[in-house]
């Protein structure tokens, strides 16, 4: 659609080597999908501004909490200190991580990685199948829309009955909740492959795997990542949620309920802080992968 016009506006003087950055800025994310951080956000003055707002918010929180003096709302300095004590005051050879960090964070991350990994691979594979076949799409679409509309945590009680408490149930909850956005977005992306390019692939007589590798996946990639971003945040939600249930002995969610049962509110807040930081880091990592894969010269919708 718009790509033809965009291409024809490509610089006529092709001798000047185009710097790598222009590849980045030429990537326009799908308007219907939640957009990745745009190039504008990376501008130094925006970075400074964002840092300033963050610091102001922290300062306000600190002052308000100090003035109030409530045990339920400790100031951020004390929360940060508790987090440091709990997880980041370990020996150098463990990258300053304490053994509690390994016990609390690693099981959580492991379950999340397993659930998200299953959701991503399964969602992309099923999405390609559904998106390739008009028939499969027509048949599956209502089911998919329904599955997506169910609030994911509502599934957990069902899975508890089926699988009982424990890691398999937790991983299944994560995978089963996170699979729908990837699946739906992949199917949508594959289905919207330019029909002319499908003709090109037919005329070049590409085999099914080559068609997948050189046409369907690359052209659906922006949508696939839109789905992955949604799935990642769902995975984090479900990771914590499934750890809040009884039958859990480790993980950040367990730390949360455990500290709560001991009325250790400082640790509760520290765990929340840790979750926020983790979520942000995971998101940033996914965005970096996306930039690497799509940034290079993608102009496709």
């Amino acid at each position, binding site marked *: 659609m718009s*790509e*033809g016009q*965009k*291409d*024809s506006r*490509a*610089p*006529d003087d*092709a001798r000047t080597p*185009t710097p790598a950055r222009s*590849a980045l800025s*030429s990537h326009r994310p799908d308007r219907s999908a939640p957009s990745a951080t745009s190039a504008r956000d990376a501008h130094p003055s925006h970075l400074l501004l964002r840092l300033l707002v963050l610091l102001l918010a922290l300062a306000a929180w600190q002052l308000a909490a100090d003035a109030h003096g409530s045990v339920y709302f400790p100031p951020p300095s004390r929360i940060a200190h508790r987090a440091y004590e709990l997880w980041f005051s370990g020996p150098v050879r463990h990258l300053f991580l304490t053994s509690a960090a390994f016990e609390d964070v690693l099981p959580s991350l492991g379950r999340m990685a397993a659930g998200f990994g299953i959701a991503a691979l399964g969602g992309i594979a099923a999405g390609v199948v559904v998106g390739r076949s008009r028939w499969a799409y027509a048949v599956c679409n209502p089911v998919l829309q329904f599955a997506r509309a169910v609030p994911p945590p509502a599934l957990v009680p069902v899975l508890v009955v089926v699988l009982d408490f424990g890691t398999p149930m937790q991983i299944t909850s994560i995978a089963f909740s996170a699979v729908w956005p990837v699946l739906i977005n992949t199917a949508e992306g594959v289905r919207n492959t*330019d029909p*002319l*390019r499908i*003709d*090109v692939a*037919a*005329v*070049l*007589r*590409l*085999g099914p795997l*080559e068609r997948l590798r*050189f*046409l369907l996946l*690359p*052209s659906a*990639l922006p949508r696939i990542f839109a789905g992955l971003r949604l799935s990642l945040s769902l995975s984090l939600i479900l990771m914590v949620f499934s750890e809040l249930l009884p039958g859990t002995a480790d993980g950040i969610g367990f730390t949360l309920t455990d500290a709560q049962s001991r009325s250790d509110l400082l640790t509760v807040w520290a765990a929340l802080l840790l979750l926020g930081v983790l979520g942000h880091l995971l998101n940033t990592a996914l965005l970096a992968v996306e930039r690497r894969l799509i940034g*290079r*010269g*993608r*102009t*496709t919708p």
Partner: protein
Amino acid sequence: MTLRLDALGQRYGDHLVLHGIDLTVPDGQLLCVVGPSGCGKSTLLRTVAGLQPASEGTVTVDGTPVTGVPDQLAVVFQDYGRSLFPWLTVRDNVALPLRRRGLARAERRAEAERILERVGLDGAGCRHPWQLSGGMQQRVAIARALVCRPSLLLMDEPFGSLDAQTREDLEDLLLEVHRTDGATIVFVTHDIDESVYVGDRVVVLSPGPGSRVVLDLPVQLPGKRDQIGTRGLPEFVELRAEVGRAVRGAQGYPTG
């Protein structure tokens, strides 16, 4: 390769696009197909390429009925921007058709570079299509079509959206390729001048619905074709007028 259309007809639902097309393109001929927009030229090429089955009649290539995409066939599409894969470099785009020939990676690359040089794009292999001008992109598409040495080449208004200078350069590139490779070429255009300049033969289609062949004209021009000399020849002017009359007549304008 000899291409033969017998009573070919094509319809979309109730809408009859082509009807009763009989045409034989002998091996090595460069046939130009001219016709008003919407008369079914692209549909004709898609049918020959085996991308859609004929509703009526048959298409045969060297005596074999076309059911899928024939071997040894290549297509250059009008919309170069969409027909190239933007996520691949120019070289990988051009090397893509070589995969099914089972060549090693290094051989594919070398072959792609060789063809790129031939279409005047040496050194552009590592760039991406969207970094090139329209004319260069269409050269990439031509290189991709030529890389498997097709014996039947279909081109759908390939130069339609290029500026005059680029267009003339590419017309001459096409003539050079045809002289040396000798493939059978079906070249669709809506430009009457271009059809006479490029073609060994020009076929005019009537406007739809139910387009037919209204003129089938061999083009004989003295000497090697060149942009300025050839277009000034009295023979060229006469042929162009004849094609023009057929296109206009077919469109229902007074022919006198």
